[in-house]
């Protein structure tokens, strides 16, 4: 799955319009840097199944994030550097074990719709992207690169696969709902990011947490990073496309900078309290 994303929409949560935007800011900003764009420019975010692209014009691009074994025509291309392609070339990646998210940035301005000052795709309400949708076969993406400037950038990444993340936990409004046994489970056990996770939320799997109440009497505000506890007792971390209100207890939250750490199915999460 591939979508167009930029930094996202700010200030509309009041109307239940989520922030959206790229899930891994550090990788997206790097991809933009490598082609000489502004760091918040729109680019392609590829999830689990990478796209195949055919170039109608010469282009300058870069790939960052996980390794989807991208090839230009028949040769493998490296990530984290500026790449030049010619009209008629194809870029193709393939699903790989432990590859979750990658970014493809193009020098210049990506086409598509801009809604509420953002090109980020939020398909539920048909915002951004190409006609408000994830990319599909046959879509043509225009790139305004009239003033193509020559850049040649490369970043050496000391890449080690992270399979375990330790994340700082902050108490949320309903933290007190957790009993002592659940507190001990929460801070002494490991949670795995489940395959049912998506851009709305990271669903965690692990020992069940119990609270006196799984359904609040009223729907209450929810922000990206909030940790909700649904009746399954398995926490959900709200992500960038998440709902803005909800009825599950908000037992905690994580720093917005740590949202990157909860992307990646199968990864292990350990919560630590300061």
């Amino acid at each position: 799955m591939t979508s167009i994303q930029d930094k996202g929409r700010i200030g509309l949560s009041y109307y239940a319009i989520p922030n959206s935007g790229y899930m891994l800011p550090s990788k997206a900003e790097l991809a933009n840097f490598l082609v000489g764009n502004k760091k918040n420019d729109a680019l392609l975010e590829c999830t689990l199944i990478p796209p195949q692209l055919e170039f109608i014009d010469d282009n300058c691009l870069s790939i960052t994030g996980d390794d989807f074994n991208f090839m230009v025509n028949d040769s493998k291309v490296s990530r984290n550097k500026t790449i030049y392609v010619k009209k008629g070339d194809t870029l193709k990646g393939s699903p790989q074990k432990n590859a979750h998210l990658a970014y493809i940035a193009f020098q210049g301005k990506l086409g598509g719709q801009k809604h509420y000052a953002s090109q980020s795709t939020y398909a539920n309400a048909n915002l951004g992207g190409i006609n408000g949708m994830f990319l599909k076969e046959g879509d043509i993406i225009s790139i305004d690169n009239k003033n193509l400037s020559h850049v040649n950038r490369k970043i050496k990444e000391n890449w080690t696969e992270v399979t375990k993340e330790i994340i700082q936990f902050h108490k949320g409004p309903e933290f007190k709902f957790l009993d002592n046994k659940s507190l001990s489970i929460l801070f002494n056990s490991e949670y795995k990011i489940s395959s049912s996770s998506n851009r709305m939320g990271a669903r965690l799997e692990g020992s069940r947490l119990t609270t006196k109440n799984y359904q609040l009497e009223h729907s209450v505000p929810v922000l990206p990073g909030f940790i909700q506890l649904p009746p399954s007792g398995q926490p959900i971390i709200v992500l960038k496309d998440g709902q803005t209100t909800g009825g599950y207890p908000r037992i905690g939250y994580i720093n917005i900078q740590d949202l990157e750490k909860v992307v990646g199915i199968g990864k292990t999460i350990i919560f630590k309290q300061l």
Partner: protein
Amino acid sequence: MQYFQLGNHKIYIENYNNDFLILKEANSISKIIPQLGQALFEAKFKFTDEVISTETEVCLKLNQNYSSKEIYEIINMSVKAFDKKNLNKQTPGKTYNLPVCFESGTDWNLIEDNCKTTTEKYINEILNIEFTLAMYGFLPGFLYLTGLPPHMQCKRKSSPTKIIPPNSLAIGAQYLGLYSIPSPAGWNIIGSSAFTVSNVPKLPPNLLKVGDKIKLKRITQDELTILQSSDHNLISYNAKS
């Protein structure tokens, strides 16, 4: 915990590490919280990125411009809004008629079981209720409407419907909800509205404001089809009637 006073309402402020604030009134559902949320949203503070307002809480997501002295700006703005708009007197919103076809409701059996009533009786009662737009939330264009008396409230479904069509009307606990976009739904679907209340992707994204009143108007399946294909929208339809 910090608090301030709006008339005889005591508003508590919970600060979560300068990441966000939650404002609420002690132990009660309060008519002034949604209006307070609206005023704080419209204030467009430099130190907030988001304001989310529900029936019981206002949440302000803070940014790097926030410092502890800004709390007084929030209090000042709240007091000013309270004095000007008489938040406590519940400023009357506009009233809209919403044409609804109940024949397309798919969960009347659940309503009948839970509320020990018949569909016809329930419809006759609901047509006499003046609903209030209590809050936005959940998804873009979704409205939470209050006004259901206890005997008409119906618990959420145990397993949600995978996808429901846009403009579905549904009962979830104490709320009447209006889904503007296709969505999974755990609420009991009782009908469809002929018009959308969503204004996405324009600003403001909703045609109705918190505090506005809504009365349902019964229409047949044929009338629904005619209205849906007409040039009318919610606003022009109400200007006419």
